[in-house]
């Protein structure tokens, strides 16, 4: 599909394309209610509650006033839809502001001021300096005579450096006045979201130029939401407008991520639902049987002889309504509130503020904090994530001579300085390539110092280094570069730039030396893409060795090369290049092909080595997280030796005697297969000994083959091995690896900083972006953004762990209290003729769920089971979260048992102490409710690990609130509860009953908890004890590589003594990796033949 834009044609475009009205709104006033309701009701829980609420409208079956469900339901819906409405209204205001902004455009040849929303395709838009671009424009003219302008694209891609944009060559030199009258047609692709490409053509109508077609690229565009900088004015023709701009197309609603905890809660809810149905069926049948056997004899009930056809359904439906409280309506609201507070805690954390830049941590996704505590795999990018991405030129090798080897810094190497000042030809050429072969923009400040704006940190490092070596890039004026070498100026004209792409892994420029008129191609790139392009005679061995040597030091290497060009060779090539550049289809590949024709027969000048220092605290962070049982994979685009070196220096792999690095390589399927088998065999054997720390290394090519043809063994290897280093991988491979681990049911966290990590970040369960020097693209796509890698340990161990623990308690407690009251209702039905009478009145039921029991537990979001310091000292404690020991069917069964026990306690004590003459419905009901409230207050208190003032207020204040509310209700004469609560509170027997209920309910729970706590303590308990008794907190500090098989072995032995209480640990969410016993393997050949890398 193509789009034809007629420049400056007011009549044509209006109807075909949309205007420039931006709308980010989800709703309109008319469709808000239906659409929002529809969205809310697409969730199972809401459907369930709606069904219950509707059933309650049928007065024959409703046990209580429908308000008990409708009230909370409407409240919950109102809260979430007013939140949505408020957000949408704010979006509308922003849209309105953008739409009504006044913009200069050309209409009928005259400049006019109109609102931004009235811009049509084909209109010419004029912008001044610092204006925001209102829609996607094709640049036609600028104030700059060379046709350049600068834009800031931070809002679009997060990159904060200024980018140059130029007018198409066709418009070069057109007078400002003539620009008002320019006519032409632009052929461009249909609106799409690719902000890096704009493959289009333009043809101007006479009298401007002949019918020549001019290629257009993204370089000729001004995209919506960018800012015009350092340019007095610019004008362009609107090509995409409104929501069809590149930015508009990029906007998408991210798929909501579901945490493991949420999935578990959903599963448990499903189980509860099934249980509820069973209860309903059983009670329904019992009720109908009772009715026929007994009920008809109860003359005072006056059952009609013949009921309507639905008579059999009435009792089951009544019980369905009675039991509907089993699924707590408040859980979603409570969890949402808690989650947003977790996110706020992350935002607020001062310890996660980058002291250098002041960047705060930010939780963009509020809903997945618990997952942080359950991470099992971390996939990390290397550059900019583990390292600072602050490139510094450190060493080089020019024509076989190594510089910087002694001092460790080539810039202070006297030999190199000497060579530069004396003008050694090789060195000068090398420096020239460093200074010219790049896309750096020098910016001269008022004081006269030059700073460089560069997209690539490598280029900036090279240009800065060459400046220190007296080859200063002083000015870039259009195509003309001013170089100053040893105080003698030189000028070069850049004719063509053969850009860097991740496939080509090199970039080249074609330049003409202005004085001599000679043509050169200067090139720099990764060794494997440059070294094969040498002319036939050159020895590349020394360069290859240099690359190898530098890589082993963990340095990044770039090979620099050049070639002289003949005029006619260039002329012939440049026309092909132009043609390739103007293709609309598959432009990138065709351009790469054409580039290849020129990039040959190079003379290698040397190798530049650039250091990228590790970020502060990276090794410690990785060590702590590895101790916590998290497996690390490093996915990097760098070469293998650099990657391994970095891995060793940041504790990815233990040093030699303990650690072992196995390499999977090979160019063909067979080689890869054999290599993979060998590595797998070794891994299995070392894994069974579980003393060794095995890591495997794979490069992008082998990975491609392994993923395609040997997925199964590779998956097994991935499960067995704690560490992996994948080098030379592409962004899509990174995402594939995440997918692979997710398929094995592991919780993955991907962390990265650059655009190439975005896919992996979006793919992973949790994406963490580092707001780094490569821009904010990763941080924007991520769920969490942090300033430095070292904050990851706090994010996971502190925030993730607390969130998981708190949610585990909060959710199970919500079910506990609902079960408690529901069981009492069920028990009561057995003494009320199985007829489905509700013991509790509407007010109590409604307030119980929404108010009395929700408030105290909400403050458990402040609970801390262990201090942050203890967790940091014993990161192994994260295990309990990873394996889901605090929330799983077995802990849930514990809470279920507890609620059953407490329901029995409350019910039995109530009906016995309020028997005979005291057996007044309203009083019995209030005694039972008070019993529940007292019990739950003590349950929350018992399960709270640390009481802050808020918890005390919430727990005990809630009791006061309970009585206050009931006294108020009891003083309303028309309410059914009139005087009840006053009467009760005057009776000594009421208070005696309360004390009895609390003691009977809590003593066994306390005793069990105490026994477990003292004699079968969980790890958390042990640490709590040692932390709070001030005992010795020792940690042997040995990284014990825990094999999954041993972890799985632990679980059943632990679960024996876990009948009632919360922390039972038989979480077997993990689909235990293939743990086929290795006897068969060991009988085979010993693993000496494996490719074992000895690392220095």
């Amino acid at each position, binding site marked *: 599909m193509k789009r034809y834009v007629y420049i400056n044609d007011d009549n044509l475009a209006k109807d075909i394309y949309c205007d420039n009205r931006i709308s980010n709104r989800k709703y309109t006033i008319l469709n808000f209610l239906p659409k929002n309701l529809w969205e809310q009701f697409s969730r199972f829980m809401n459907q369930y509650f709606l069904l219950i609420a509707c059933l309650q409208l049928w007065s024959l079956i409703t046990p209580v006033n429908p308000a008990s469900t409708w009230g909370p339901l409407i409240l919950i819906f109102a809260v979430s839809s007013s939140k949505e409405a408020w957000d949408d209204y704010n979006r509308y205001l922003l849209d309105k502001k953008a739409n009504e902004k006044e913009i200069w455009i050309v209409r009928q040849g005259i400049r006019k001021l109109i609102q931004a929303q009235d811009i049509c395709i084909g209109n010419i838009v004029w912008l001044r300096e610092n204006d925001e671009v209102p829609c996607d424009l094709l640049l036609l003219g600028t104030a700059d005579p060379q046709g350049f302008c600068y834009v800031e694209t931070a809002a679009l891609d997060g990159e904060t450096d200024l980018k140059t944009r130029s007018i198409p060559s066709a418009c070069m030199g057109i007078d400002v006045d003539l620009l008002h009258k320019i006519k032409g047609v632009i052929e461009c692709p249909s609106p799409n979201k690719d902000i890096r490409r704009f493959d289009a053509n333009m043809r101007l109508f006479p009298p401007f130029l002949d019918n020549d077609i001019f290629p257009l690229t993204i370089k000729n565009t001004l995209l919506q939401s960018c800012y015009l900088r350092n340019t007095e004015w610019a004008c362009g023709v609107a090509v995409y407008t409104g929501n069809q701009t590149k930015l508009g197309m990029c906007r998408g609603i991210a798929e909501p991520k579901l945490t493991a905890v949420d999935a578990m809660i959903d599963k448990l809810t499903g189980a509860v639902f099934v249980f509820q149905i069973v209860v309903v069926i059983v009670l329904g049948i019992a009720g109908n049987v009772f009715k026929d056997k007994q*009920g008809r004899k109860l003359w005072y009930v*006056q059952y009609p002889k013949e009921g309507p056809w639905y008579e059999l359904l009435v009792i089951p439906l009544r019980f369905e309504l009675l039991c509907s409280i089993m699924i707590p309506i408040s859980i979603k609201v409570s969890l949402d509130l808690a989650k947003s507070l977790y996110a706020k805690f992350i935002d607020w954390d001062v310890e996660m503020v980058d002291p250098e830049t002041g960047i*705060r941590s930010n939780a963009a996704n509020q809903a997945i904090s618990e997952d942080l505590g359950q991470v099992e795999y971390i996939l990390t990018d290397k550059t900019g994530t583990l390292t600072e991405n602050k490139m510094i030129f450190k060493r080089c090798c020019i024509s076989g001579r190594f510089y910087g080897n002694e001092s460790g810094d080539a810039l202070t190497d006297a030999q190199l300085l000497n060579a530069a000042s004396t003008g050694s030809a090789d060195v000068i050429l090398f420096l020239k390539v460093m200074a010219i072969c790049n896309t750096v923009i020098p910016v001269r400040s008022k004081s006269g110092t030059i700073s460089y704006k560069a997209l690539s940190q490598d280029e900036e490092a090279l240009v800065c280094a060459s400046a220190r070596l007296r080859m200063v890039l002083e000015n870039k004026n259009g195509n003309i570069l001013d170089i100053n070498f040893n105080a003698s100026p030189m000028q070069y004209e850049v004719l063509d730039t053969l850009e860097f792409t991740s496939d080509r892994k090199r970039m080249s420029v074609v330049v003409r030396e202005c004085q001599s008129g000679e043509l050169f191609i200067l090139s720099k790139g990764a060794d494997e893409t440059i070294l094969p392009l040498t002319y036939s005679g050159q020895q590349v061995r020394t360069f290859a060795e240099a690359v190898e040597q530098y890589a082993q030091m963990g340095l990044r290497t770039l090979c620099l090369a050049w070639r002289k060009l003949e005029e006619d060779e260039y002329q012939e090539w440049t026309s092909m290049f132009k043609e390739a550049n103007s293709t609309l289809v598959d432009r990138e590949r065709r351009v790469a092909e054409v580039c290849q024709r020129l990039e040959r027969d190079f003379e290698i000048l040397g190798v530049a080595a650039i250091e990228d220092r590790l970020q502060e605290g990276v090794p410690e962070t990785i060590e702590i997280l590895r101790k916590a049982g998290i497996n690390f994979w490093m996915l990097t685009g760098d070469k293998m030796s650099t990657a391994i070196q970095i891995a060793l220096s940041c504790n990815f792999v233990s040093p030699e005697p303990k650690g072992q690095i196995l390499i999977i390589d090979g160019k063909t399927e067979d080689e890869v297969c054999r290599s993979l088998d060998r590595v797998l065999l070794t891994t299995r054997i070392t894994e069974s000994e579980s003393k060794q720390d095995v890591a495997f290394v794979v490069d992008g090519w082998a990975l491609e083959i392994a993923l395609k043809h040997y997925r199964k063994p590779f998956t097994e290897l991935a499960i067995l091995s704690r560490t992996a280093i994948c080098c030379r991988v592409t962004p899509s491979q990174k995402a594939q690896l995440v997918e692979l681990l997710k398929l094995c049911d592991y919780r993955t966290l991907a962390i990265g900083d650059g655009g190439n990590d975005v896919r992996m970040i979006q793919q992973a369960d949790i994406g963490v972006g580092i707001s780094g020097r490569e821009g904010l693209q990763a941080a924007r796509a991520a769920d969490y953004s942090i300033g430095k890698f070292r904050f990851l340990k706090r994010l996971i161990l502190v925030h993730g762990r607390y969130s998981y623990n708190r949610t585990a308690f909060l959710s199970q407690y919500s079910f506990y209290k609902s079960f408690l009251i529901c069981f009492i209702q069920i028990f009561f039905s057995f003494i*009320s003729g199985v007829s489905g009478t509700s013991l509790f009145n509407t007010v109590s039921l409604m307030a119980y769920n929404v108010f009395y029991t929700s408030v105290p537990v909400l403050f458990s979001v402040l609970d801390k089971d262990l201090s942050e310091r203890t967790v940091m000292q014993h990161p*192994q404690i994260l295990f309990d979260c990873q394996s889901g020991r605090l929330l799983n069917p077995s802990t849930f069964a514990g809470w279920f048992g507890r609620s059953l026990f407490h329901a029995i306690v409350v019910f039995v004590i109530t009906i016995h102490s309020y028997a005979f*003459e005291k057996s007044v419905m309203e009083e019995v009901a209030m005694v039972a409710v008070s019993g529940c409230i007292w019990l739950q207050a003590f349950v929350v208190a018992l399960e709270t690990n640390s*009481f802050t003032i808020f918890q005390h207020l919430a727990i005990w204040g809630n009791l006061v609130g309970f009585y206050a509310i009931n006294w108020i209700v009891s003083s309303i004469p028309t309410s059914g509860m009139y005087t009840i609560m006053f009467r009760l509170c005057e009776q000594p*027997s009421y208070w005696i009953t309360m004390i009895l209920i609390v003691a009977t309910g809590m003593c066994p729970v306390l*005793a069990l908890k105490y026994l477990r706590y003292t004699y079968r*303590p969980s790890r958390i308990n042990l640490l709590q004890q040692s932390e709070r008794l001030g005992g010795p907190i020792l940690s042997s500090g040995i990284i014990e590589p825990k094999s999954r098989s041993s972890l799985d072995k632990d679980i059943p032995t632990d679960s024996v003594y876990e009948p009632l209480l919360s922390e039972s640990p038989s979480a077997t969410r993990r689909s235990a990796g293939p743990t086929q016993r290795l006897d068969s393997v060991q009988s085979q050949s010993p693993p000496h033949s494996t490719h074992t890398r000895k690392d220095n």
Partner: protein
Amino acid sequence: MNSGTPSSSAAGAGSADSIAPRRNSKRPKYSRFTQQELPACKPILTPKWVIGTFLLVSVIFIPIGVVSLFASRDVVEIVDRYETECIPETLRNDKVGFIQSDRSKTCQRTLRVPKNMKQPIYVYYQLDNFYQNHRRYVKSRSDQQLRNNGSLQDTGPCKPEDNTAGGPIVPCGLIAWSLFNDTYGFTRNNQQLDVNKKGISWKSDREHKFGKNVFPRNFQSGTLKGGATLNPNVSLSEQEDLIVWMRTAALPTFRKLYGKIEVDLQRDDLINVTLENNYNTYSFSGKKKLVLSTTSWLGGKNDFVGIAYLTVGGLCFFLALVFLLIYLIKPRQLGDPSYLSWNRNPSGH
């Protein structure tokens, strides 16, 4: 033109500054709440505390239990089950037929007072197996109608006892319709024992739930006769039997106050009861009992609370002892890090 050489550090710092986006540039506000550093009390379950708690509970509970039990034992209670005895022996195989017939249902019972009973002595009737809490029954009333003279027509929930041909029934509904109608008369040594039937209902009910100007209408005038009839000239707020009856019971066994005897009864007094056995509990084999009882600060005779307190107290004492023994025999240092699994030598065990 050739001024100072650009330095990489300057460029670095410049770009770093510009990277920091506006929204993130301000430091988060520091407070102990936002940093989750609120001072907190972190109790742990040490043996001292737990054993102490259990001992304390038992120390408190056992006396309360003893006191409650004594209070309950002090209550003197006479219970007489009469629903079978009050039917002539010949007719006992068709009790329902008897109760629905027009025969005289007067019946004489003699009660012996086991202990001295201080006035006031409460007279209750107890019904067993009577589901006042049945779903159809418990809702079958109109509080509006009972309270207001103007809400005669408010008989919505009262079906099927809502209307007759002559208009709405007041009080409507199954509860009122099935009003208990056995009556008791007491004599001691041939002397009439007065039963005070004033003030047996809740004051709040008389004043606010049952209207002074609401009078029975069309009551028990339908085809199906339920329980007692009401004097149409007495306002509902004075029909205390009805008010008591309409405080529905939560359990199928319940007692309702019939009246108060305001003289002391002596030990071994014989009390003759003349009762009208009108109420039909036979169709559903319910029991009827007449209960005379004194009261204590805990209410009527009910050993449950005392026994429960003693049990819980004893159990807590027992648990405290057991915990103490375990603690002494097998002391265990809390928080010993050698128990941490990762500090354990996996092969050592």
